[in-house]
């Protein structure tokens, strides 16, 4: 795995000054001198960034994600074929480098490598959209509940509990059955309506404790309104958990979308999604590549996202100053 900019100790240091360029180690040579002791101020974010850059697992996850998602984003350029180009003379061929059929072809001769890459794009779009929309819902619900407390909190949290107790997959299947297989966006919206609960609870907890802080009272005494206090003063304190949760829910959403598509209730067939690609392998148990490649891709994506999420969690925890190996 790639090591982020190792400090090269064994090489003789030519001059002291050049050493300062090592990221994460820069000690305020360039700092403002005030009484000769002042170091350059470092923000919370720069500490967090350094911690993240030193987190090996997270960095490898990030690199993998950039490659895989990059392939998804630029699918048009990366994929050797279109995802619906049919070649009936070359059906169910195994993986080969010939004609760039790296992952073989499917039952009607479509290049499976291209289909997987376009599947990545679909899954990625669903995951990011769901994470983004559900984070917004979760933040608003959690912030309002935690800040106002009382009956507002009670109502919002009971609704949250209700959504949490609903068996998401069953509801999604029902919805899909009623509405028919949908476009990618419909699936995404439905998923987003289920994914906000965890974050709402986290944000509510943080708001509950922070609204008692004196700086909130000071903001009130300065004449700030509720909305301003919630989103300008308290929200920045909760960004850590929000970012971590948002990242992890990209992975979770991709898995659930895959499960839905696998069961045939997700995204409509011509558009490939990792779930439906895996499902298509069921008909051809001997043609291993049809199941293995999309499955492996899904696994890699989700594991990488979770590594990145873990890294962010460690990096954004302000209690932690210890440098992680």
């Amino acid at each position, binding site marked *: 795995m790639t090591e982020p900019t190792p400090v090269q100790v064994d090489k003789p240091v030519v001059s002291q000054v050049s050493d300062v360029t090592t990221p994460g180690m820069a000690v305020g040579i360039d700092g403002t001198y*005030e009484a000769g002791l002042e170091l350059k101020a470092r923000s919370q974010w720069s500490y967090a960034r350094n911690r993240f850059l030193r987190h090996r697992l997270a960095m490898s996850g990030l690199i993998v994600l950039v490659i895989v998602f990059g392939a998804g984003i630029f699918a048009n350029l990366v994929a050797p074929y279109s995802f619906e180009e049919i070649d009936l003379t070359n059906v169910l061929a195994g993986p080969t480098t010939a004609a760039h059929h790296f992952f073989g072809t499917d039952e009607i001769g479509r290049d499976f490598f291209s289909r997987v890459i376009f599947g990545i794009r679909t899954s990625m779009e669903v995951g990011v959209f769901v994470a983004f929309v559900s984070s917004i819902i979760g933040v608003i619900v959690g912030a309002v509940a935690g800040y106002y407390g009382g009956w507002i909190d009670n109502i919002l949290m009971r609704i949250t509990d209700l959504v949490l107790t609903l068996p998401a997959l069953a509801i999604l299947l029902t919805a899909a059955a009623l509405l028919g297989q949908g476009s990618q966006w419909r699936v995404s919206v439905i998923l987003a309506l289920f994914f906000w609960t965890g974050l709402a609870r986290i944000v509510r907890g943080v708001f509950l404790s922070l609204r008692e802080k004196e700086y909130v009272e000071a903001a009130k005494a300065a004449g*700030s309104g509720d909305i301003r206090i919630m989103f300008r003063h308290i929200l920045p304190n909760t960004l850590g958990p929000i970012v971590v949760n948002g990242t992890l829910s990209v992975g979770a959403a991709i898995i659930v979308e895959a499960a839905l598509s696998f069961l045939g209730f997700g995204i409509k067939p011509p558009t490939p999604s990792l779930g439906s690609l895996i499902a298509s392998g069921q008909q051809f148990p001997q043609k291993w590549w049809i199941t293995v490649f999309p499955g492996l891709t899904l696994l890699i994506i989700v594991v990488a996202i979770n590594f990145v999420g873990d890294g962010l969690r460690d990096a954004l925890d302000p209690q932690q100053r210890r440098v992680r190996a």
Partner: protein
Amino acid sequence: MPEPVLSIRNLIVEFRTEDGVVHAVDDISYDVFPGETLGIVGESGSGKSVSTMSILGLIPQPPGRIANGTAMFKGKDLLKMKKRELRRVRGDEVAMVFQDPMTSLNPVLKVGYQLGEAIKTHYPKEPNEKVKERVIELLRLVGVPNPESRYDNYPHEFSGGMRQRAMIAMSIANSPSLLIADEPTTALDVTIQAQVLEVLKRVQAETHAATILITHDLGIVAEMCERVIVMYGGKIVEHGDVHTIFQNPRHPYTIGLMDSLPKLTEDEEWLRPIPGQPPSLINRPPGCAFHPRCFLSQGRLQCREEVPPLRPIDGGKDHASACHFAEELIGRHSKFAEPVPAGGAS
């Protein structure tokens, strides 16, 4: 006499708790005049803070409740204002400095940004460069060195005294006509206290804001204030100008407070605390709330049964005391009175 900036009449604030109703502030009235510094002193729980927080709508309601009273500020009653109106007053015309500068600044926002917020909240159309200029000017005014580079610092990069300076800067950002400082130096160590008080004085000279200084430190009162209000058990027990209060206190509680301080010019082996406990604000002693601890009461019936009214006393201008037997204290000086008369305070 000039028009008062703030005129509080018959303010009653209660808190409902599981144990009963707490009478935090019980029927107090006072005026604050332009440009003056009014000290409010008293023990913890005497209602000092609540009396000022409540008029700005800063006590949680419920459980808090303003049961009665008016607070006229520039011809308007703060207690009858709508939430939105009151918000416009807070931080603009009336500003507060809080006790603990360590927790009163938001740890994740840059100091300069937070000060700018105080301006932007009330003047959202103000261009950003002008706000920044003003913030730097404010930081310079309160004596923060290198305000240009300090602007981009986070609160954890400020020392305690520096943070309190920043808080003071924030409070005067919109040139308020009334500044309420709630124990502004309690959380700071003594040398820093002196500096912060200096800053407060300078700021007051600059802005001509009337100041209410809430404290339990009589030294700060003597240093900073022109007039003093002494509170006990949610009531005002004595008020007067600072000279009179220190020279001729006419309430046994005020005398007790002063006697409990060590006088550094004398060789004192023991502190002389006021015996007993502050009164429970749920079941207040009948009559004068101070009578169980009072050296003057000696179990007299009137003290136990009749609530003493706050009445004018001869001692000096604007001097009033809520003691049935205030006259018996004539000639009895606090130990801070000069010269110390024979058989005086002890």
